[in-house]
């Protein structure tokens, strides 16, 4: 077969196959061009999910009649002159490929009226390109700026056209892409319509926050934490590729509270120099930053914008520019992780509890709350930002999105949901009673609700009031344990209900990881007079040997003692103290490994495994629901909340406490 040079159209169509795979990527390329042209507003109109029409109009710099025909030529760009510049790309476009590619697979009209030195040119011009058919340049009487219309996308590549999904699906993708572009450019006004119906209108604003909230929804405003970080210049990265001093990276972002976390990573937005991208490393940093604040199947809502010296990032690595390559990926990971984590630590993450909550917007967000779906009427739910405002008073309407039911929200709501109806009533009744009790009798008394440490009950309590009245100042904050599982106390804002197991687990976990991960020292361990023999089966004996370095860091000295038996020679002191059996613990650990829930081997796996095992330890060692705690123990546990990080959630991400605010109480008791 003879080799021949491909016709230009085919070349462009092949390129198009990479650059534009669906309507959303056409929108992305065209809007990026508008942004590169310095537009102050961008209006996008879509018909039939983009298969019929994609129209992008801007008020940017436009093109002169000389440039206009070049725009549709492959490898024609005004944004790049030399290969040195390729290393420091500051514009969204740089290949000179997009317009040509799109034109080769559609019927395209480009109309533009240039703005030269701030003054609009007298006339505009337009050009029609249909596949390889190209019209002459004709005058155009439009506003300064550029309008690009793409009709009949993929009309000449039937295979691709066939693969287009339903218009609503394609439009969904377009809307998502559009939103991402809009988020990073608050100084530009954006509108979007589908089949003539406006779906987004984001006027220009002055801050990223304003724009992001406009895009994400006002109802999330108080569930998003803004953060910002300027990194001081680093010596080693001080030189960029071009030799000029690199400016230090900056991070800005919005971090969603754990309560608005989602089941997928769809609500994570990452930008590098105004360009929406995906990055596995940074996504990992997101999860990492919320480690212990979210259940395993939840993803935080997150916006992160990185400003980097263009020399620090290669944007020319992906056909649709959806990915970039960082010069120093681990520095970026650390930067993002640190910025988010610091912000979370500054925040009181106690969710508010609300009684009989009317619900509206919360459901739209994919969250869950108590609803009539499962026939429950009274309920507690976590205050989903917007839900507090407006909404009907009944709180009984079905959510309308039963698909969300049962998906773990990782919150009190879900645990409540999983309880049997009678349990639910209990919890509700309890707290109500507890509130009433604490109103006039903050001290423990003989109410059946209260659990006394056995035996020492009477004398101490009886003696108390006298002591109390002698010292009228500094009344201690009331603390009481209900159902041997929850601790009810107060803070300035209202009543706080603590899950004793969850909080203790978090406290233990933080103390352990501070030592093992922070100070890098193995856990303190007690050696045994005689090894404790554990029969684990021949198959697992090898596993224990492999595990040995990990176990060592945890203060566990385990060694094979025969074909199917291991001996524990040392075990962490604190586990002994908490009556955790070595045998049960080690067997549990081995089960986890065999079930693939714990990976060992490899440096990162080591760290993850260590985390996981510390978590197991904390869980095993923590007080359980049903454990009676003395007054001192209760007070000591609550005091720990101030000492440890992330006390608001247990290591699995469930909240450790919820708050019933005074405001909410006043409302419920009709005092407002």
């Amino acid at each position: 077969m003879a080799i021949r040079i491909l016709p230009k159209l085919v070349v462009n169509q092949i390129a198009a196959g990479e650059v534009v795979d669906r309507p959303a990527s056409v929108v992305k390329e065209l809007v990026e061009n508008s942004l590169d042209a310095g537009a102050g507003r961008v209006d996008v109109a879509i018909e039939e999910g983009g298969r019929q029409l994609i129209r992008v109009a801007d008020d940017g710099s436009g093109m002169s009649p000389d440039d206009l025909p070049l725009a549709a030529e492959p490898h024609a760009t005004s944004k790049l002159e030399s290969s040195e510049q390729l290393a420091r790309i500051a514009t969204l476009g740089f290949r000179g490929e997009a317009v040509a590619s799109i034109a080769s697979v559609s019927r395209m009209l480009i109309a533009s009226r240039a703005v030269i030195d701030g003054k609009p040119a007298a006339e505009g011009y337009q050009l029609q390109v249909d596949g390889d058919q190209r019209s002459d340049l004709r005058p155009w009487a439009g506003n300064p700026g550029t309008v690009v219309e793409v009709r009949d996308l993929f009309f000449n590549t039937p295979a691709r056209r066939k693969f287009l999904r339903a218009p609503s699906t394609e439009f969904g993708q377009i809307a998502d892409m559009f939103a991402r572009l809009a988020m990073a450019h608050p100084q530009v006004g954006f509108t979007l319509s589908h089949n003539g119906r406006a779906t987004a209108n984001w006027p220009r604003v002055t801050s990223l926050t304003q724009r992001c909230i406009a895009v994400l929804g006002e109802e999330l405003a108080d569930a998003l934490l803004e953060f910002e970080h300027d990194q001081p210049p680093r010596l080693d990265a001080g030189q960029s590729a071009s030799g000029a001093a690199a400016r230090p990276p900056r991070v800005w972002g919005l971090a969603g509270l754990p309560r608005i976390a989602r089941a997928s990573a769809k609500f994570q937005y990452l930008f590098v120099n105004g360009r929406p991208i995906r990055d596995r490393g940074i996504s990992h940093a997101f999860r990492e930053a919320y480690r212990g604040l979210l259940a395993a199947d939840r993803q935080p809502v997150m916006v992160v914008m990185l400003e980097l010296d263009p020399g620090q990032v290669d944007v020319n690595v992906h056909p649709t520019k959806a990915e970039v390559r960082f010069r120093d990926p681990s520095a970026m990971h650390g930067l993002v992780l640190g910025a988010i984590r610091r912000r979370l630590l500054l925040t009181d993450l106690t969710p508010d509890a609300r009684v009989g909550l009317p619900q509206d917007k919360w459901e739209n967000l994919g969250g869950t709350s108590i609803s009539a779906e499962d026939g429950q009427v009274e309920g507690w739910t976590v205050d989903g930002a917007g839900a507090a405002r407006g909404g009907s008073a009944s709180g009984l309407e079905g959510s309308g999105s039963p698909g969300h039911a049962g998906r773990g929200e990782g919150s009190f709501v879900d645990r409540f949901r999983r309880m049997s109806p009678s349990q639910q009533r209990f919890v509700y009744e309890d707290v109500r009673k507890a509130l009433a009790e604490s109103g006039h009798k903050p001290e423990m008394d003989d109410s059946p609700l209260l659990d006394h440490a056995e035996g020492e009950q009477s004398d101490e309590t009886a003696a108390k009031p006298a002591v109390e009245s002698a010292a009228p100042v500094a009344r201690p904050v009331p603390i009481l344990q209900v159902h041997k599982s929850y601790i009810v106390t107060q803070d300035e804002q209202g009543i706080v209900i603590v899950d004793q197991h969850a909080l203790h687990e978090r406290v233990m976990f933080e103390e352990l990881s501070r030592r093992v991960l922070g100070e890098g020292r193995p856990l303190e361990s007690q050696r045994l007079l005689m090894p404790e023999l554990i029969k684990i089966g021949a198959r697992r004996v090898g596993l224990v040997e492999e595990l040995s370095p990990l176990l060592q860091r945890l203060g566990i000295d385990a060694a094979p003692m025969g074909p199917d038996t291991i001996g524990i020679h040392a075990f962490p002191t604190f586990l002994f103290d908490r009556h955790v059996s070595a045998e049960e613990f080690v067997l549990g650990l081995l089960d986890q490994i065999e079930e693939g829930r714990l990976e060992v081997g490899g440096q990162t796996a080591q760290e993850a495994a260590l985390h996981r095992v510390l978590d197991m330890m904390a869980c095993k060692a923590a007080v359980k629901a049903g454990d009676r705690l003395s007054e001192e123990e209760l007070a000591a546990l609550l005091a720990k909340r101030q000492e440890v990080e992330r006390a608001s959630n247990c290591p699995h991400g469930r909240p450790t406490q919820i708050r019933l605010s005074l405001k909410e109480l006043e409302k419920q008791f009709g005092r407002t």
Partner: protein
Amino acid sequence: MKLVCDRGALAEALGTARMVVTGRSPKPVLNCVKLVAEKDRLVVTATDLEIGMHLSTSKADITEPGTMAIPADKLLQIVRESTDPTLTIESEQEAVHIRGQDSHFKVHGYSPADYPAVPAFSGSADFVIPAGTLGRMIEQTYFAAARENSRYAINGVLFEREGPKLAIVATDGHRLALTRTVLEVAQDPGSQKSIVPPKTLQLVLNLMKDPELEIKVRIAENQILFQLGESSVCSTMVEGNFPPYRDVIPKELDRKAHLLRDALLSAVKRAALLTNEESKGVRFSFTEEGLVLSSRAPEMGEAEIKVPLSRFEGEPIDIGFNPGYVLDALKAAHDEHITIELRASGKPGILRTGPDFLYVVMPVSL
């Protein structure tokens, strides 16, 4: 049954009985003590089916012998709260009347026939030991017994006799306490072993008033019996094997410190102040200059305490111990002079006082 009884003596017996009859049994008769009025004495019998005892007092004037089962806690409360020097107790069908000068209680009881049989000490003793000696030996060991069950029967205290030599041993797997004596009276030349629940020993300790009293001990098939004067305690033994304790007593320890018990006791108590849940070990640094204890609790602070040594043999050594374990041993040491023997940081240490008491303690890696 009818009798007049000294209130103090009865209160004391009932107080001890309450250590066994906890009042939490679902079977009402098991929440009772059995009163047995014999010719010249009153016997209070109590049992939880594992431990049983007969507490006898002669400070009672029996007019009509008889027997009755009465809820232990009620009876104890009545006897304690009364002010009379003596109380009259009289049974009438299933109830007893307890009368003081100004009081009359009628308490419903249970048929003594339903009360479980509690073996009394019968036959000859296997050995006899002065209360003072047995008391010391129990105090030096029973604290070290394991609280939880394990593969070995270490939730009990081992009594091991070979001819006239008696050893009592307890361990929880982290430390081991061993104390020995040579018996003056041992009828049986053979050897015997028994693992005794610590609670039983606590009861026996409680009943020891006179250190001179000769306590008779008898080890039957699965029971151990103690006869203390008029009273007796019998207890089921802990089933299972005691670990081969001799194997865990290290030999050839080449570092040896001689010091005073009270100095170390106070120093360890102080060093333990700056330890916490996840960092509870105290570092013991031995040199010829002396012993330095140091501890550290993250976010709280650090402590360092010097303890003079009367003598130190061997190379300097640093080793970590759980202060609680060391304190237990020091409290049990009945002698002012102690020695600590060590070999290496990761190896067991031995604390000794006198010829009788030895305590092996495993280190903590700090």
